[in-house]
């Protein structure tokens, strides 16, 4: 999560309007779901990967790092998709047919391609930028503010957690299983109390700056470029065309 966040803030496309990146992703997702999976999923996946690694210059390792967990879940679901269960006749019957397998693989490919699109989005766009876009698209402001604050506090808490863990480790808190469990319990309990305290103090800190229940800030607005929007659409067209030409 920390690595993802770091890339989101520092990649080459950080200052490109989130709407443009979102349009690119929406186009790819639409192609991914509209066309037969076997023909389009590869192209969608490749487009997302290349945009991340070559376009935004995010290291490929980071891309695979984001992909690995969802891919694991998908693979784990493969047998369940491939096998079909027949309940009629003499008792339940499990069967593995070539069609079932093909269907399962198709669903997998489609899903992996969709995950790749989202990986592109979160590796190139900081969460607050996505939230600003969501607000513009009609997400309730209260929800956006809540998510915005949570994003900030998650990092404060993570920082504290890693510092506290280091301190515990220095005093041999993770020597063996038993001490580890105890230390972890203390860590979580302590973090909870500290987070409450922090919330209270943040309230004071914000009030000192005139906070009256409205977390307004002035965001730097990147220009929405018509050229890049057209490019995003063009990319989708290219993917769709290539899928149709080489099915």
């Amino acid at each position, binding site marked *: 999560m920390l690595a993802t966040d770091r890339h989101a803030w520092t990649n080459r496309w950080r200052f490109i309007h989130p709407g443009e990146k979102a349009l690119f992703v929406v186009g790819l997702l639409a192609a991914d779901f509209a066309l037969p999976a076997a023909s389009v999923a590869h192209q969608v996946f490749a487009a997302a990967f290349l945009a991340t690694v070559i376009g935004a210059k995010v290291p490929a390792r980071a891309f695979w790092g984001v992909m690995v967990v969802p891919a694991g879940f998908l693979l784990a679901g493969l047998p369940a998709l491939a096998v079909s269960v027949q309940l009629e006749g003499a008792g339940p019957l499990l069967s593995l047919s070539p069609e079932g397998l093909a269907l399962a693989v198709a669903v997998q490919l489609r899903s992996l391609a969709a995950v790749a699109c989202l990986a592109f989005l979160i590796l190139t766009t900081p969460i607050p930028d996505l939230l600003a876009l969501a607000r513009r698209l009609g997400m309730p402001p209260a929800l956006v503010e809540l998510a915005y604050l949570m994003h900030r506090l998650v990092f404060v808490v993570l920082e504290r957690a890693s510092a506290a863990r280091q301190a515990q480790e220095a005093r041999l808190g993770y020597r063996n299983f038993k001490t580890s469990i105890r230390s972890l319990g203390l860590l979580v309990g302590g973090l909870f109390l500290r987070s409450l305290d922090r919330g209270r103090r943040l309230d004071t800190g914000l009030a*000192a700056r005139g*906070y*009256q229940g409205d977390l307004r800030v002035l965001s730097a607005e990147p220009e929405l470029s018509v050229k890049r929007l057209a490019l995003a659409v063009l990319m989708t067209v290219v993917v769709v065309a290539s899928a149709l030409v080489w099915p």
Partner: protein
Amino acid sequence: MSEAILEGMSEAILEGMSEAILEGMSEAILEGMSEAILEGVSEAILEGVSEAVLAAEEICHTYPGGVLALAGLSLTVPRGCRLAVLGANGCGKTTLFLHLNGSLQPGRGRIVVGGVPAAYDRAALTAWRGRVGLVLQDPDDQLFAATVAEDVSFGPLNLGLSVAEVRARVAEALAMVGIEALAARPTHMLSYGQKRRVTLAGVLAMRPEVILLDEPTAGLDAQGAELLLASLEALNAGGTTLVFSTHDIDFAYGWADRVAVLAGGRCLREGPPGEVLANSGLLAQAGLRRPLMVEIAEAAGLPHGGRDEILAGLADRARR
């Protein structure tokens, strides 16, 4: 009859005497008295009787759990000063600052802002916080926005300023503390010293008359502290009143023009550093030691005064 006499007198005064009086006075003012008056005023300023921007009058505060953090503390902040609030850990510095900008309300006593007793309704608090900025000790208690520029824009937006004005103020505040280059950086990817400068910029952008800084140099290295102090000096030269808490007595001695010594939730003494910080009895009572400069002056047999006097004395000694 008495009425007639009074009328007659008043007429006489109005017609005849008034001219003479006015002439006499104006002459006196122009020639003789003006000097005396000016002297009197400058003396008053030197003595610290100048206008108070902020004052605490016998304030008491008890935290939930029964800790008496402030026990009848009185303190006057003269306009344009650099006032150091000195005291050992737990003597009530942070609690005092939270009162001075209305974050806490005293159980007894009162706060006076610009000569007017403070009110705690929403409108009054908003105005108060526009005039008196507070920089907390831990920057994570104050930074909440995703990027530096966004965070700095928060205060001025709360003042109800226009977007163009807010943009200008953000740029100005970032330049004042020397972090223009960090404007687009996320706040969670900053060093501690950078975070502290961002919190200062966030308060500067509101252009307060008074800035309260809780332990501004704690946790900063020498260079970080110097950068911060340079920004503060420029502000102070521009007329902003600075009040900062510290337990670094050498820093207070060298940098402040007034010091207040706190102990046990009370202000023991307020005055010029050369005078207050040479008083060993007072400092011992507050759990503080004397500034190094004062120790040196004493060892060298020089009279204690301000820092510059002592330095001049030492230089003189070295020459001889």
